[in-house]
């Protein structure tokens, strides 16, 4: 790849900018080589040409002082930075910037675990701390606190939260569990939000709201600042953990499963994020498509049936878990089991009923107890050179909505020549539908088809009243454009905030459709 320049910056200024960055972080932590260094900041799962997202450089400060000086350099040259922490945001853009030429601001080196508070159940971490790191640390110090991790354990505690990410224990809604934030504004000001604004505060990580407007949300999925530290509530290890799986025979059971599930979730009988997983997702983590079918188009029912029987899975597979003292778990289980038993063909499994080498069960069991792993990446083995981007609309928890969304995606996806591989994750009142659009990343035509399909899904979902909860860098403008109530009042407000907190427009221009003034409306 050829090297590129940041938008609007001349080559000689760029050379001076890099020299200034090197003075701040040292030569070793400014990356510029397009052949050997910058590929580390590509998104291997792009459906568009890599050139569109190629960074001009990357810079990795070690601490807030260096970060402050990096921002100063960026302001001086009006150079766009693209903030990443652990940089593993695959399926939504990986570490790649929104546009070519940005300088990736890589916070991986800021990776200290600043505090673990056993008594009150929280940890305070810097941006570069991965779930694996935190888990390892808790193990080392003999902590009885659990991590709640996203399926990929290499993801970061802080950036996953800022992306509104989810995990699989009762603490799975990460934004809800975050308490206390430190953020650096584009002008270098360091701000403590909530109770942290009170010098000597005793409750920075215990009470979220402080006094006055609660601003933490302004720094999630945003480009208004660089988050440098957060507190995260951690779940104390419960006296008992009993994960279970319920398989359902028919594709049409999705409606009933969702209807049965809603009251169980709303009444907190299923405390963790509840997962209803379609069979191909279950298959893809353990076998390849070619093991079963080499034809094109949707996999025929006869083959799907064999897959279900071989892998002991259903057309839909529900994962939940009981937490607490054994008598409580026993009582809850009676209610849960009786409710789902109303669906003909439902089969119930506990750990002892599943094989030790059952890949799908084993990783879900770990996730329910906050034990990080990476098993879910195996979905990429489903087809040769597998990659995926995730389409993730939110809907109400009803059978009608689940079925409507499923059919909306499945039909378009099959027509475009892709397998439907998806799951429904039910939180407090919402349902995230995650459709893992899997394609061959070495096949240019297939990538173009995947890109087109994704766009169609955005429009079809919006027309039906469903919006996405996060998205890939390639679709940020398009999806932000669907949140357009009252002449896009929300986006206009975001832009006003952006102009005030980052007047030079240096922080992640275009993140979630929010552009600085200089790059707005066709200027980008």
């Amino acid at each position, binding site marked *: 790849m050829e090297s590129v320049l940041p938008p609007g910056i001349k080559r000689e200024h760029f050379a001076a900018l890099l020299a200034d960055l090197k003075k701040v972080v040292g030569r070793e932590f400014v*990356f510029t080589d397009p052949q050997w260094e910058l590929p580390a900041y590509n998104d291997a799962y792009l459906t568009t040409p890599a050139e569109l997202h190629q960074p001009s450089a990357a810079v990795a400060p070690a601490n807030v002082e260096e970060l402050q000086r990096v921002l100063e350099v960026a302001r001086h040259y009006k150079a766009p930075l693209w903030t990443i922490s652990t940089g593993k945001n695959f399926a939504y853009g990986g570490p790649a910037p929104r546009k070519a030429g940005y300088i990736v601001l890589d916070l991986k080196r800021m990776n200290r675990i600043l505090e673990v508070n056993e008594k009150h159940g929280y940890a305070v971490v810097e941006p570069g701390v991965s779930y694996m790191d935190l888990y390892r640390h808790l193990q080392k110090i003999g902590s009885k606190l659990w991590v709640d991790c996203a399926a990929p354990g290499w993801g970061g505690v802080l950036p996953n939260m800022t992306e509104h990410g989810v995990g699989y224990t009762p603490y799975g809604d990460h934004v809800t569990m975050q308490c206390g934030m430190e953020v650096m504004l584009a002008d270098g000001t360091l701000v403590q939000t909530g109770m942290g604004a009170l010098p000597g505060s005793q409750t920075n990580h215990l009470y979220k709201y402080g006094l006055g407007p609660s601003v933490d949300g302004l720094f999630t999925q945003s480009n208004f600042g660089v988050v440098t530290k957060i507190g995260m509530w951690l779940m104390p290890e419960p006296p008992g953990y009993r994960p279970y799986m319920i398989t359902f025979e028919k594709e049409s059971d999705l409606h009933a499963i969702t209807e049965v599930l809603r009251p169980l979730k709303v009444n907190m009988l299923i405390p963790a994020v509840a997962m209803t997983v379609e069979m191909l997702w279950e298959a893809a983590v353990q076998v390849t498509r070619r093991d079963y079918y080499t034809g094109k188009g949707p996999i025929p029912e006869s083959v799907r049936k064999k897959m279900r029987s071989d892998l002991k899975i259903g057309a839909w597979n529900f994962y939940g878990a009981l937490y607490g003292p054994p008598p409580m778990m026993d009582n809850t289980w009676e209610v849960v089991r009786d409710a789902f038993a109303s669906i003909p063909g439902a089969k119930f499994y506990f750990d002892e009923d599943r094989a030790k080498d059952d890949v799908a069960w084993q990783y879900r069991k770990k996730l329910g107890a906050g034990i990080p792993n990476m098993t879910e*990446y195996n979905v990429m083995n489903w087809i040769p050179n597998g990659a995926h981007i995730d389409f993730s609309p939110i809907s109400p928890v009803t059978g009608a909505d689940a079925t409507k969304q499923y059919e909306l995606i499945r039909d378009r996806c099959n027509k475009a020549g892709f397998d439907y591989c998806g799951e429904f994750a039910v939180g407090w009142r919402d349902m995230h539908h995650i459709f893992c659009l899997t394609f061959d990343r070495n096949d240019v035509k297939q990538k173009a088809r995947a890109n087109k399909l994704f766009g169609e899904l955005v429009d079809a979902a919006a027309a039906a009243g469903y919006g996405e909860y996060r998205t890939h860098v390639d679709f940020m403008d398009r999806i932000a454009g669907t949140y357009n109530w009252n002449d896009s009042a929300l986006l206009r407000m975001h832009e006003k905030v952006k102009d005030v907190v980052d007047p030079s427009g240096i922080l992640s221009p275009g993140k979630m459709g929010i552009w600085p003034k200089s790059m707005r409306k066709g200027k980008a």
Partner: protein
Amino acid sequence: MSITLSSRRTFLQATVSGGAVLPLLTSLGMATNAVAGGLVEAEGSLCLFEADAAMGADMAAGVRQIGLAYQTVTLDDAAGWSAMLDALTSARGRSLAVLGRSATVFAVRSMLEPTWRVVLEGRHSRQADSGMRHELSGLDAPMNQLSGWLNRVRDPAQYAVVLASMTRGEFSADAERKTLDLNSHAWPGSDLVSLLAWPKGVV
């Protein structure tokens, strides 16, 4: 999960000077003195491979036989992942040969760059006619050296040894890159991806 760091130099000198030839090397058709040179170089390398039946060979036995340092990789547990990260930390400055299924190698690669430079990537897939297709991409020179070995190795373990032996090259950073599509007899196991990564400074 283990790392074996045997004294390969001593071992090879004894083997070569004593006229004994390792069965593995013989089967690879390597001339002993050339091998001694190449493999002494391989002291500076670490082999990472997926601990899975899909590899179709007892990788650990294969690479242990040749005295190669290795680390198994798994996506399935935190301890295994951490062990790999530890191995990478202690392998700074050494070459890496990585073999596994596509997802696993993708994950490992994401942890290597930019500290290491991936000079060669291979996609090895079984064909309907029971042969094996090898799509190689990377630097010209190591690829040329490597291509001759594809038909001579018996399984992924032997291929790993060959990869790991390629630790040095007189290559400049702007060395030519190319792609190569080759066929060979079938290797056991499922489709694989391989990487050869050199530490910063070698290229």
